[in-house]
């Protein structure tokens, strides 16, 4: 049974439709991140799940129960707000007590829950303080503790880290990951930060202009972007996108991009059509520097700027009239006086999009990955985080 199900959910403000029929199923215990640029409808969607916005059309279910017209207080949810929304006139303990009050627990049980939440989030020394006496990170932890004590069916997070500085953001991010691992409660999390999404999510829902562009695991949306928007939105630095045309199809299919002749991915040789306008995507991390006598197909590129980032370097290159960014190990970066390099990329790692529709071209043209999305657990989250 899904924990949260949205079926053709629509949100209208007067005549203006801002969310256009969203379908989404969040499984029990899953960590789902709604990701997208500002104004894409992700927060509106979350607020509809919370009951803070009316649903203009469609069905919303939480734990198998239709909740379209159910008050927020009766939805068995807990929410962490962007600006924390702690009650400023109450102490940390009172904030948690107030959240528990509607459940009418015995004093011992309430105390037990508050004690446990405070212990898990390291709030024990702060229980008697008011929110104004806490730092940003502490306030965020109190907001999480307040949500936690209620033992809800679903946790909702609305950009909880956006008000924190970069260092604290990383810390709290790990806290949230640990919390999910420990409690195993379903989480629906909104962010515009792809690093948060990639590190935390079991399943990422990428949204744009009130529509879902792709649903999939972090690995899927990164390695198999369904369309140009997802390809350009996910990944930092962003994917290099170059306009091209199919020069030859069938066996030995090739693409022309400016003055570059690029072999097409083997798997796509059957589906590409000659003279088809395509957009060729290559991840900066898939570009390698090779020596001029290398056996693989390689291209000359002039160096515009080299950005040194410590363990790696970003090379801003120009190859065959195309601007490209390459991400290489810092030790491989060109020397100061070097003007040109030779680059290569594996044709099978290229992403090819139909320019007209913006959709990815897939072998057999079955490019719908949203059905693949499933539970991946938290097993390699910290590993992923280290990578991103």
């Amino acid at each position, binding site marked *: 049974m899904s924990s949260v199900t949205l079926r053709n959910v629509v949100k209208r403000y007067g005549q203006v439709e801002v969310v256009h029929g969203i379908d989404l199923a969040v499984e029990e215990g899953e960590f789902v991140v709604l990701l997208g640029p500002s104004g894409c409808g992700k927060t509106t969607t979350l607020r509809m799940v919370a*009951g*803070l916005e009316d649903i203009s059309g469609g069905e919303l279910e939480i734990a198998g129960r239709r909740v379209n017209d159910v008050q927020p*207080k*009766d939805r068995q949810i807990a929410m962490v707000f962007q600006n924390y*929304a702690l009650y400023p*006139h109450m102490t940390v303990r009172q904030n948690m007590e*107030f*959240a528990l*009050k509607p459940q009418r627990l015995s004093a011992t049980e309430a105390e037990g829950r508050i004690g446990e939440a405070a212990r898990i989030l390291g709030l024990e020394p702060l229980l008697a303080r008011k929110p*104004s006496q806490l730092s940003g990170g502490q306030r965020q932890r109190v907001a999480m503790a307040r949500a936690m004590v209620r033992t809800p069916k679903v946790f909702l997070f609305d950009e909880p880290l956006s008000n924190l500085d970069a260092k604290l953001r990383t810390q709290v991010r790990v806290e949230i990951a640990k919390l999910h691992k420990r409690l195993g409660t379903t989480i629906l999390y909104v962010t515009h930060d792809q690093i948060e999404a990639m590190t935390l999510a079991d399943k990422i829902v990428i949204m744009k202009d009130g529509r879902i562009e792709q649903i999939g695991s972090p690995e899927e949306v990164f390695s198999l972007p369904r369309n140009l928007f997802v390809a350009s939105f996910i990944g930092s630095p962003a994917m290099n996108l170059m306009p091209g045309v199919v020069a030859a199809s069938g066996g030995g299919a090739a693409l022309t991009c400016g003055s570059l002749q690029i072999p097409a991915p083997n798997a796509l040789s059957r589906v590409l059509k000659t003279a088809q306008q395509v957009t060729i995507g290559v991840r900066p991390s898939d570009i390698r520097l090779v020596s001029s006598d290398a056996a693989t197909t390689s291209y000359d590129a002039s160096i515009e700027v080299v950005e040194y980032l410590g363990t790696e370097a970003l090379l801003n290159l120009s190859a065959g009239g195309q601007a490209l960014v390459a991400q290489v190990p810092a030790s491989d970066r060109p020397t100061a006086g070097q003007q040109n390099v030779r680059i290569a990329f594996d044709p099978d790692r290229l992403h090819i999009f139909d320019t007209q529709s913006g959709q990815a071209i897939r072998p057999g043209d079955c490019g719908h990955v949203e059905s693949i999305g499933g539970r991946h657990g938290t097993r390699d989250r910290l590993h992923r985080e280290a990578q991103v």
Partner: protein
Amino acid sequence: MTSSVREKLLVYLLLSVVLIIFMTPIYLILVSSLKPAALMFSKPPAFIFTPTLDNYYDLFTMRPFHLQILNSLIVALGSTAFSLTVGTLAAYAISRIKSRWINDVAFWILSMRMFPPIAVVVPYYIIFQSLGLLDTPLALIIVYSTFNIPLTVWLMKGFFDEVPEALEEAAQVDGHGVFATFLYVTLPLTAPGLAVSAVFCFIFSWNEFLFALMLTGSKAQTVTVAVMSFWSSDAVQWGRIMAGSLVVLVPGVIFVLTCQRWLVKGLTMGSVKG
């Protein structure tokens, strides 16, 4: 002399001037109330004299002044409580309801305040007469509330606008209903506004003279009318008027000092970021 000492001296000097300006009438009232009648208008003014409490004694023996204080308290506290209850709920609704016509309602409420009070004295008299409410504290409570409610609505609306709606949303998600959210989250955060409104309502009701004069007789007479009753066509009993005025000051000062605790708390709450 260092500049900080000089600055302090200047501040104290200015404060002294302000204090003198404000306290002189009070001092004159106090001194006059303690003077024997013969010295009231002596020339040059008598600064040194044997003080007497005769005026205060007469105040409470010749008239039921304690009952008139009680009337004033019932009217002022009654109108304050009623205006705060109704005004606060109305202000909350106006602050939260997002609709075009709600602003028209708000201005209509404000327009009550713009009405010249004297224009409605006679209609009120006739209405209360037909209702049998003349010379009752309830009549004054109703009349004063019509002036106090618009003030409360507009003051409190400003304070409610400042309370982030996210706090109320958090309370709702936490499982609380609309009324519990209002009572435990929104209202405590507007305590300074409540204090300011209470002070204004109380002072207006306590000091009001015109309606009290017209709508009360002997039973529900308030202190303002009672003090003026020492001013008759035969004589003006200055000593008693002064004694009455001083007694009338006391409850107001106590009320404002009680509310001041919340006013100061409100100021410090606002000054803490976040």
